[in-house]
């Protein structure tokens, strides 16, 4: 495959649009919108077998089928469709699930046998990731961000033939929501672009009722209802309540992160904040909560994937609103039902650079990384060995939009430094990343002279990122550079549609 070099010096397949800067194409291009596909009101046909859907909607070779990932690792819908593809021996199918989890293992033989030859997704982990990195997918894996996927769909770049939209509760007209029913999952933000723009829309439910209490899925866009015994396993759907970490190193990182945010003067009236659902993120949120309570500060909103921790902060009056693109646990689902200021956002209003996305209103975001380089470019797509284990999700979107983007990570993980000369894969460009907090020091991106100046007399352990790398090498010894040697199996597509890096083959062990 011939390659060209993009704006960050990375090789990408020739013929694809090279990344040129985090706002280059946002400034250059206009928003492109294809027509929404509206079906109309009234009762929608109900089916009980997936085979009926394939027959009725003439699903054949080469078509693009899409799915959302609100059911996470408890999802049964994608696998149901895969089983039918396998039965009919369909070939060259293009799948566009917004994320892929270990539960989607049945996709692996379909990839290996050519039933599925291309995948568009924002996050992939588990056996499917392994199969892709080992080179079994015939065409390229295209990884978008949570904000870039709606851009691709609404512009027609990613044309979906049939969208299979899992909806926990649906009524006769195809209206639905994610809060009622045995497989409740909360908000359905990631499903909205598929609902609006796919050629055909099938809502898949296990709870078919006379009337739904609230409408998050508008039946006017729905072609048909597939009523099945179960759309997923609640245990896998709700990731369970994560607790703030108790690891002393993570706690030190969290403490310094919160202290940094405070020292920059962000924690004041109207403060807006987003972070992940992991143990360290929650520890940061806990420290921030402490500061806000002590100083009686009311923030404007918290956003992103919502956990019970953020729900508590909202209910204690610390954040006026919650903007929810995904509910991580039962408390978040319940809160969405009962709290009028707990609001859903569609993937587009969350992060689409051509929309007016919420990420642009964010003050502070705290994110993770598998690797970060001296230019603050961040990798959340592969690990240091090149293994595919994630993807941007909302990483690149929030990093762009937030006034302060903080990356937290251990400096050292089992003799490997997380700060590198060069990262294996660039997911999020360094120009959108401001600060790195590790257990051995805090590094500020030299692009942020304002922050460096603001904190020049701070007692926080601020060093340069070069010093962190040096410190790491002092401790571990200097590693041999591990360079990719295989063929390109996928690309990381930045939120604006340009290609920021390639993903390389990694041979199985």
């Amino acid at each position, binding site marked *: 495959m011939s390659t060209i070099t993009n704006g960050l010096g990375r090789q990408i397949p020739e013929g694809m649009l090279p990344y040129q800067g985090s706002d280059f194409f946002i400034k250059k291009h206009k928003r492109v919108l294809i027509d929404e596909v509206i079906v109309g009101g009234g009762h929608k046909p109900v089916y009980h077998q997936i085979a009926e859907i394939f027959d009725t909607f003439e699903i054949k070779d080469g078509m693009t089928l899409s799915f959302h990932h609100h059911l996470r690792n408890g999802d049964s819908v994608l696998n149901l469709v895969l089983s039918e593809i396998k039965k009919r021996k369909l070939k060259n199918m293009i799948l566009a699930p917004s994320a892929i989890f270990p539960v989607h293992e049945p996709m692996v033989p379909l990839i290996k046998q050519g039933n599925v030859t291309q995948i568009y997704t924002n996050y992939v982990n588990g056996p499917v990731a392994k199969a892709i990195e080992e080179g079994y997918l015939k065409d390229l894996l295209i990884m978008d961000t949570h904000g870039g996927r709606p851009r691709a769909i609404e512009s027609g770049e990613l044309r979906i033939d049939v969208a299979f939209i899992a909806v926990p509760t649906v009524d006769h007209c195809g209206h639905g929501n994610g809060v009622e029913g045995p497989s409740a999952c909360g908000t359905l933000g990631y499903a909205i672009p598929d609902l609006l723009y796919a050629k055909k829309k099938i809502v898949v439910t296990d709870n078919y009722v006379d009337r739904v209490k609230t409408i998050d899925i508008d039946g006017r866009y729905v072609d048909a209802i597939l009523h099945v015994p179960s759309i997923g396993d609640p245990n896998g759907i709700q990731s369970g309540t994560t607790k703030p970490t*108790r690891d*002393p*190193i993570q*706690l*030190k990182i969290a*403490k310094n992160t919160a202290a940094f945010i405070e020292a920059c003067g962000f924690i004041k009236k109207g403060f807006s904040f987003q972070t992940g659902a992991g143990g360290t993120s929650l520890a940061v949120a806990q420290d921030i909560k402490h500061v806000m309570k002590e100083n009686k500060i009311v923030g404007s909103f918290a956003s992103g994937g919502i956990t019970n921790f953020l729900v508590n902060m909202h209910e204690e009056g610390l954040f006026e609103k919650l903007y929810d693109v995904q509910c991580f646990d039962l408390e978040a689902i319940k809160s969405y039902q009962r709290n009028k200021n707990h609001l859903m956002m569609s993937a587009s209003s969350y992060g689409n650079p051509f929309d007016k996305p919420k990420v642009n209103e964010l003050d502070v975001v705290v994110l993770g990384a598998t690797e970060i380089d001296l230019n603050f470019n961040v990798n959340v797509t592969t690990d240091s060995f090149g293994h595919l284990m994630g993807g941007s999700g909302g990483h690149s979107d929030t990093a762009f939009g937030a006034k302060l983007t903080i990356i937290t990570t251990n400096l050292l993980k089992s003799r490997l430094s997380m700060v590198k000369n060069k990262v294996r894969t660039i997911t999020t460009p360094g120009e959108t990343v401001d600060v790195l907090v590790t*257990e*051995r020091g805090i590094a500020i991106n030299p692009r942020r002279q304002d922050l460096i100046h603001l904190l020049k007399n701070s007692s926080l352990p601020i060093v340069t990122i070069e010093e962190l790398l040096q410190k790491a090498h002092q*401790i571990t010894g200097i590693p041999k550079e591990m360079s990719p040697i295989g063929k390109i199996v996928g690309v990381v597509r930045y939120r604006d549609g340009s290609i920021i890096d390639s993903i390389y083959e990694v041979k199985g062990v």
Partner: protein
Amino acid sequence: MRRSLLFIPANSPAMLQNADIFETDGLIFDLEDAISLMEKDAARDLLSEYFESYKLEGVELIIRMNQLDSIYADDDLKRALSWPIDSIMVPKARYQDLVQLEEKLEKLEKKTKWEKKIMLIPIIEQAIALFEVDKIASLDRVSALLLGGEDLATNLEVERTKDAEEILLARQLVIYAAKAYSKDAIDTPFTDVSDKEGLIQDAKHAKRLGMSGKSCIHPIQIDDINTIFSPTEKEIAYAHRVIEAEKEALLNHKGVFSVDGKMVDKPIIERAKKLLEKVKS
């Protein structure tokens, strides 16, 4: 300052190489309870290589050796003199044993031309030791006393509780003995690592009684202990005022003076000096 002392198992590389991250005043590399009998040799070798590679600064380096009457004690002491440690923590400390240990150290230090003088932190964890704790505190090399609450409770055949009533007398005796000889009194660890409130209550109680610091068994306890045992801003400011007032009084040939409306006599001046010394260190 010895507000917090963290126990670290000497045989755990993961803990050793992160030891410098935690803001503790002292690190206790444990060769005793944390190490199984079969691994005592491995622990010593690991510490030797560790100290070769790592230069730790600004923190007191302590080893908890094995009991003096065990087969491990001799090797512990021999190796200890090749390590850059400040103090040795002695479990089940008894006066006579410590006297002999001091002599031994004197000899070993001369032999290895060791420039530093290794200090001792005896662990008071037996009922009988409390009847000689003043003599122990008076020893030249003893710089602090550590109360070993868990083993003491076992010795007393009682349950070790969070409100610590059963070790109250022991705490106080250790404190009085330490203060009598101007040594530090270090409190026993709070063993429920998941109970933050309990730790804070226990540490505050220990401080009120007169402990100068507290040992900890998990890094998560360090911050709270440092906060509780640190002199407050108010205390530091007051101490400065006392010293300033003393200087002025001397200049004006005044024998007696007052600060904040209260008369200041010698004990208060001494206390202020000690506190400022601690803060400086």
